[in-house]
C-alpha cells in the first residue's frame, strides 16, 4: 500500500473557500498552522487537555488537535484570525483587553474562541456554569478570575442584543 496518502478537500476558513490537499493523518490544527500558516490557533498539549487549539467548526467549539483535517471536507472553520471585523475587534477580544484577562497570551485565542462557542450554545446561566463550561481551557498564568468576568460580560451583552 502506498505510504503517501493525500486527499483533496474544500474548507471555508474565515470566510474564504480553499481547495486543499492534505495528508490524511494531518490534524486540523497542523493543517492550519503548518500548511496555511494561520498560527493564531495554538498547539499546547496536542491531546485535547488544554484547549489552546480551540476553534469554531460550523459554529461549534472543538479541539482542533483531536480531529483530522481530511474529515472536514465542506466545513466552515473560524479561527482567532477570523473573528474581528477588519480592524474592529470582536467584543470578546475587546473584553479580554479591558479585563486584563491574560498574561502570556498563549491560551488566549483558545479562550476567546471557547467563549464565543459558549455564548452560541446558550447553556451558561450562572458563574458556576461559566467555570464548568470553560474548564476545557487551561490558563497556566492563572488569569481565570478575569476570564470569568469576560465571559460573564459577554453573556450579558449577548442577552441584551
Amino acid at each position, binding site marked *: *500500500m502506498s*505510504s503517501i496518502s493525500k486527499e483533496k478537500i474544500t474548507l471555508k476558513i474565515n470566510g474564504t473557500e480553499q481547495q486543499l490537499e492534505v495528508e*490524511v*493523518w494531518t490534524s486540523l490544527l497542523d493543517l492550519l498552522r503548518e500548511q496555511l500558516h494561520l498560527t493564531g490557533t495554538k498547539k499546547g498539549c496536542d*491531546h485535547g487537555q488544554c*484547549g489552546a487549539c480551540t476553534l469554531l467548526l460550523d459554529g461549534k467549539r472543538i479541539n482542533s488537535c483531536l480531529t*483530522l483535517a481530511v*474529515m472536514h471536507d465542506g466545513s466552515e472553520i473560524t479561527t482567532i484570525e477570523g473573528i474581528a471585523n477588519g480592524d474592529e475587534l470582536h467584543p470578546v477580544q475587546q473584553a479580554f483587553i479591558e479585563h486584563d484577562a491574560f498574561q502570556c497570551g498563549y491560551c488566549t485565542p483558545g479562550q476567546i474562541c471557547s467563549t464565543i*462557542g459558549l455564548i452560541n450554545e446558550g447553556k451558561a446561566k450562572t458563574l458556576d456554569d461559566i467555570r*464548568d463550561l470553560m474548564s476545557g481551557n487551561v490558563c497556566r498564568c492563572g488569569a481565570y478570575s478575569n476570564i470569568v468576568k469576560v465571559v460573564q460580560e459577554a453573556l450579558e451583552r449577548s442577552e441584551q442584543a
Partner: protein
Amino acid sequence: MRSFTYTRAKDVPSALQDLSSHQDAKFIAGGTNLLDLMKIDVMKPRHLVDITGLGMKSIEERKGGGLRLGALVTNADTAYHEQVEKRYPLLSHAILAGASAQLRNKATDAGNLLQRTRCYYFYDTATPCNKREPGSGCSAINGYNRNHAILGHSEHCIATHPSDMAVGLAALEATIRVTGPQGEREIPIADFYRLPGDMPQKDTNLGEDEIITAIDLPSRGFADNYAYLKNRDRASYAFALVSVAAGLEMDGDTIKEARIALGGVAHKPWRKPEAEAMLVGKKANRENFMTVADAYVQGAAGFKYNEFKIELARRSIVRALMQAAKIDQ
C-alpha cells in the same frame, strides 16, 4: 503519528466491508480518544474508516416508548436534547459530568461507550500493560493505582472504565444496537462491558467486525428521583474517582424500585441488582441507604493508593440516594 490509509464509508454495509478488507482497520467518528491514543502509539491502526457519513445522527422516539440515540449523535447534542433533558435527566447529567464542552461537541455517543481506560500505564508505552500488550504484565497493581478498580479486578488488570455516560446508561438499562456481517443484534448494556479476567485487552463484547448503530433508552427514565454524583480530584474536567448514577421509583416515601450504577470503581459500570432489591418496599432514609451501600462495596478490594475509594464509594452511594430521594442532608 504513524501513517495510515483512509476511506470514507457511505453506508453501514460498505463500512463493515471497508473494515474487514483492510488489515488493522478501525472506525473513526469523533476521534477524540482514538487520535489521542494514536499520537502516543498506544493504538496503531493501519487503516481508518471514516463513518461520519453514515447518518445515525438523530434522536428518535421508539415504538412503545423510549428514545433511540443514533450512534453518531454528539455527546453535547444528546445531553442538551429536549427529550433527553426532560425524560432522562440522569443521562444528561452523566454526560455533562464528563470531558469538556469542546470534547462533547465532537465525541459521539457510540465513541463515548468505546473509549479506552485512562490507566496511566495503559498510556505509557515504556511500561508493561496487559490491556495494551497482552501478556506483558500489569504495572498498576504494584504501581501508582489511585484511579484504579476496587471491584471486579483481576491479577491481570485493575483498570477502570472512564465513561460517565455508560454509568448513566447502566442505571437506565439501555440497549446497544449493533450490526455485523450476520445482521443486527441487541446487547443489553449489562452484557456489553466485560470484566478484565485474563483478557483485559478486550473491553467489550462488541465483535471485531461489528458497528454500533444506536443506543436504545427504555421508556422509564427515573426523571422524578435521580442523581448523578461524581467525585473527582477537581470540580470539573477530570475522570471519576467514584461516581454514582441513582434512580428511584417512589410511592410517597416508599421505594418501589432502585437503580444504582457506580463509575470509576471497576472495568465496567458496576451494578448489583440483588443489593438494589434490598430497597424495594423500604422507606427512603439514610439508614436503609447505608445498608444498601454496605452491600454494594462488600467484597471490594483496594490497592496501595486507592483503598480510600471503598469508603468513598459507600458514602457516595448514600449521598446520591439521598439526593435522588430529595432528602435534605
